[in-house]
C-alpha cells in the first residue's frame, strides 16, 4: 500500500496537473446544463470545505458554524450587488472582509475554549446569524430572501452562461488550493499543525496560540465569505434556509469523510457527498436513509476518512531522503 502512496507522492505535480486538465475538459465531455451546474456546486463546496479544513483539519479546532460565514458573505455580496450594483471584485472582497470581521469578533473571546465547548459556541453562533438573517427585514428581507441578484460582472464583461460560471469557480478552487497549500507548507502552517498536535508544547515553542487560532479562523471565514459571494451571484436568489446549522454540519461531514488535513481527500469527499444525493434521487424516499447508512459504514471502515492523515509531501520527502540515504 505504501509503495502506491510513495509513487503517488513522488509525481504529485503530474497528477494534480492531469486532474486540472480533466476539470477544464469536463464541460466539453458533459455539456448538459445539469452536470455543469452540479460541477459548479462541487467547486463551491470544495472552496468551503478546504477553508473549514484549515480550522478543523490542520489546527484541530472543531467549528460547526462555518455556514454562518458562508451566509454572511452571501448576504454581503447580494446586498451590495442589488443595491449598489458593484462589480464582482468589490462584492467578493467585501464579502470576504465582512465574514472575516465577524470571525474576528466571535473568535477573539471564544477561541480560548476547547473541543466541544468551541463546537457548541460556533453552532450557537451559526443559529444566531441565521435568526438575524430571518428577522432583520430592513437589510435582508427576512424569509422573503433577496431576488434577482445580478451575475458577477467586471468592466462590462458579465458572467452568466453556466460554462462561464464553471470556469470561474474552477479558478477560485485552484486559488484556494494554492492558498491553503502555501499556508500549510510555511512556518505559519507548521505552527498551526503544532497547535493541533499539542497546544501546551506549541506554546512552549513560542507560538502565540490565541493569535494563531484567531488568524486561521479569520482566513477560513474570509474564504467561506468568498464562496458565499459566489453562491449569491450564481443562484441569483438567496434566503436564510440555506445557511442554517444543517449546512454547517454537512460541510463538516464532507471534510471528515474525505480525510482531515488532506487537500485531495477533501476534494474527493466533497465530490462524493455532493453527487450522492443526486445519484440516489431516483430512490425518492429511501435516499436519506441510505445516505445515513453510508456515513455509518464509512466511519466503521475508515474512521480517519478516505485519505485521512496521508500527507503526500511528507511521503515524498521520506522517499527522497531514503533515496539520498542510499546514495550517501
Amino acid at each position, binding site marked *: 500500500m505504501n509503495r502506491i502512496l510513495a509513487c503517488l507522492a513522488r509525481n504529485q505535480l503530474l497528477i494534480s496537473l492531469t486532474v486540472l486538465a480533466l476539470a477544464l475538459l469536463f464541460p466539453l465531455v458533459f455539456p448538459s446544463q445539469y452536470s455543469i451546474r452540479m460541477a459548479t456546486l462541487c467547486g463551491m463546496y470544495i472552496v468551503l470545505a478546504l477553508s473549514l479544513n484549515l480550522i478543523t483539519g490542520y489546527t484541530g479546532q472543531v467549528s460547526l458554524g462555518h455556514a454562518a460565514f458562508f451566509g454572511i458573505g452571501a448576504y454581503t455580496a447580494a446586498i451590495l450587488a442589488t443595491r449598489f450594483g458593484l462589480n464582482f471584485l468589490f462584492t467578493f472582497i467585501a464579502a470576504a472582509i465582512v465574514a472575516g470581521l465577524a470571525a474576528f469578533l466571535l473568535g477573539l473571546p471564544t477561541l480560548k475554549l476547547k473541543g466541544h465547548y468551541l463546537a457548541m459556541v460556533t453552532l450557537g453562533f451559526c443559529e444566531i446569524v441565521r435568526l438575524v438573517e430571518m428577522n432583520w427585514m430592513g437589510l435582508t428581507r427576512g424569509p422573503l430572501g433577496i431576488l434577482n441578484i445580478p451575475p458577477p460582472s467586471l468592466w462590462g464583461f458579465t458572467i452568466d452562461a453556466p460554462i462561464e460560471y464553471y470556469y470561474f469557480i474552477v479558478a477560485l478552487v485552484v486559488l484556494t488550493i494554492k492558498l491553503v497549500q502555501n499556508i500549510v507548507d*510555511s512556518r*505559519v502552517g507548521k505552527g498551526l*499543525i503544532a497547535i493541533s498536535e*499539542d497546544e501546551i508544547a*506549541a506554546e512552549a*515553542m*513560542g507560538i502565540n496560540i490565541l493569535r494563531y487560532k484567531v488568524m486561521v479562523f479569520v482566513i477560513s471565514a474570509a474564504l467561506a465569505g468568498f464562496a458565499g459571494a459566489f453562491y449569491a451571484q450564481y443562484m441569483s436568489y438567496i434566503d436564510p434556509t440555506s445557511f442554517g446549522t444543517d449546512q454547517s454540519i454537512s460541510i463538516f461531514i464532507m471534510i471528515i469523510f474525505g480525510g482531515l488535513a488532506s487537500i485531495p481527500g477533501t476534494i474527493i469527499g466533497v465530490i462524493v457527498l455532493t453527487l450522492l444525493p443526486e445519484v440516489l434521487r431516483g430512490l425518492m424516499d429511501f435516499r436519506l436513509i441510505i445516505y445515513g447508512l453510508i456515513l455509518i459504514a464509512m466511519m466503521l471502515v475508515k474512521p480517519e476518512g478516505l485519505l485521512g*492523515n496521508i500527507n503526500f509531501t511528507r511521503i515524498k520527502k521520506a522517499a527522497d*531522503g531514503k533515496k539520498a540515504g542510499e546514495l550517501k
Partner: protein
Amino acid sequence: MKPLLGIERVTQRFGGLVAVSNVSFQIFENEIIGVIGPNGAGKTTLFNIITGIYKPTEGKVMYDEGNIAGFRPHEITQSGLARTFQNIRLFQNMTVLENVLVGMHTRTKANLFDAVFRTGRLKKEQLEATQKAEYYLRLVDLYEHRHSAAKNLPYGSQRKLEIARAMASEPRLLLLDEPAAGMNEQETAELMEFIGKLKALGYTILLIEHDMKLVMNICERIIVFDHGCLIAQGEPEVIKKEPKVIEAYLGKEA
C-alpha cells in the same frame, strides 16, 4: 557577576496545598544547576512557574532585570528560555525535522503574508532554518531519521529530539525536566557526555533529575527541594554529606 535568572521568594498554592513555599535562588551564565528532591517536592511546579504555565501566588522571577512571573509561556520562550517536559510532549504525527523547525519558531520571521505569496524571504529563511535544524539533529545524531514521524522513534531518541527541539529556539537558559528518565545505563552516559558538550557550547542549563550518578557528575551546583521548600544549595560534594538532604531522601534514622 549578574545572575541570568533570579527566583525571589516564590510561593505557589493550589487551593489549600502549598506546592512551592518561599523559594529563592540564582543562576549564573554557563552554569549547570541540578534540582533534586523526592517526588512531589515541587520541582516541576517551579519549572512551570519559570516557563509561565502557572502564575506564582507570590514572588518574582527576575530575568534580564525584568520580572517575567506571569508572562505567557510563548513570551518567555521568545525572551530566551526553552524547556523540555517530564512526560515527552513531541508533535507525534509531525516528522523529526518538522518538530525541530517548530522549535525554531521564535527565531524565524516569515509571517502570513510571506506564506501566502511564497515570498523570497520565506524560501530563503526556510532553507536556512532547515540547515540549522539538520545541524541540531546531527548534534543529537538523529539526522538519519529526520523524515520519519516523531512517534516512531524509540524512547531514548524521543528524549534527545525534545532537547534538540528546545535548543533550536537558541535559548540562553535551557530547562531540562528529567531528561534521563527511562534511559538505560548506556543512554544516560551518552546524555551526560552530550550535556557536557552543551556546556562547552555556552548554554546555561537547569535540570531536574532523579539519577544521582548523572546529577553528581555533571552539575556544578545542586539545589535540593523537599515539601516545596529549598532545604539546601551548593557543590555536589557538600550536598552529598548535608544531613538535611539525607534525611529528606532516606527519612530520619530510626
